[in-house]
């Protein structure tokens, strides 16, 4: 996705609040998003952290890390680090989420 989103004031769709009254403050919602993403990323040995409320840092157990702007960028960076695809339709990932989530 485009790195200019922030500069031009456009919010990525995954960062939009769903509730009409935006029940959770933006920062709290962001941390919740990071927590949920980590439930998935642990499957690949990766971890996402919030970076100053404006970006995310994706890191691997071997110490590689990359700053990303959006969730979409995070999936792309994860695939680069892993050298393979991160597929939400992969049976092992689905079974893990069914078992552990």
């Amino acid at each position: 996705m485009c790195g200019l989103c922030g500069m031009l004031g456009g919010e990525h769709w995954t960062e939009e609040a769903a509730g009409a009254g935006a029940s959770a403050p933006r920062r709290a919602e962001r941390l919740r998003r990071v927590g949920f993403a980590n439930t998935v990323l642990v499957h690949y040995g990766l971890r996402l952290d919030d970076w100053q409320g404006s970006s995310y840092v994706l890191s691997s157990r071997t110490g590689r890390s990359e700053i990303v702007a959006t969730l979409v960028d995070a999936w792309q960076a994860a695939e680069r680090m892993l050298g393979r695809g991160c597929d939400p339709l992969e049976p092992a990932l689905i079974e893990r989420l069914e078992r552990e989530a």
Partner: protein
Amino acid sequence: MEGSAATPVNIVTGFLGSGKTSLLQRLLASPRLADSAVLVNEFGAVGLDHHLLRRIDGDVVLLQSGCLCCTIRGDLGAAIRDLHSRRERGEVPYFRRLVIETTGLADPVPILATIMAEPVVRHHFRLGNVVTTVDAVNGAGHLERQPESVKQAAVADRLLITKTDLAPAAAVAALRRRLERLNPAAPLIESDPARRVDPEFLLATDLFDAAGKSAEVRQWLAAELRRPGAPSHDGHHDVDRHDARIRAFCLRHEQPLDWTAFGIWLSMLLNRHGENVLRVKGLLNVRDSERPLVVHGVQHLVHPPIHLDRWPDADRTSRLVFIVRDLDRARLQRSLAAFNRIANPAAAIVR
């Protein structure tokens, strides 16, 4: 989230000879398009002479209907940005809608991507209805042989079967069934030179139109009733056929969805499989929101979600209409449910 003041952009696409130009000629003459600008590949093909009011410069002419008509020279993004700056500077009449004609051989997705993702364009314009012409005489053959033709039909918001006066009724009916399977969410309109086309319904009634958005969502949901998974009646089951690998289906999720978990799921799905998700349109029952949320996307791109004022019917189930190539419905359904359990571990597992 509440809609947008951005200028809607309609795409008129369709295979070579499918009647795009005839449709454009009829639209250009319509007073309903008086405050629109139209980007065409070349003036000559549209035959503007008898509509012409004045030539603004080499690439831009003003028509008697009030419609502005421009040629696309080279890059589409640059053509739109140029038109936008001319409008801002008052060099061309103010237009409230932009209509783009694609070339017949074009894969429409990069054009949709330009509108939805090009950094400058997407701040001033938004994607409106995609209108696809399919001709009743040659359309079935194009769908069989030309992958672009299948994509053009699959991404459509309105499907127009043209030249119905030149084809046998049985052929028109078979084409209609085939298009309904390929893209059950798009209303199908049969057209011949004697029949009036309604520019409003083709171009303007969409998700952002306050009066039209609820009706538009009802159209998608009616797709479920047309049972797109039903077996073909025309006897064609050749897996090499370009449209045989493309299927439409509707996922349903009974419990309210968590928007954050849904965002993680859809962003991951489109990152990995966006190439094969030709279109996704959904009406979601989201936790913490009284009103339903509408999402729609094309391949890797998703439009920011929109709230509807009210549910279009009594059903509060989340429904997602997918038009995909080579993706399995049951797997998608199970994956969606598994991801939603991240936010709601008590939710049922879907097998």
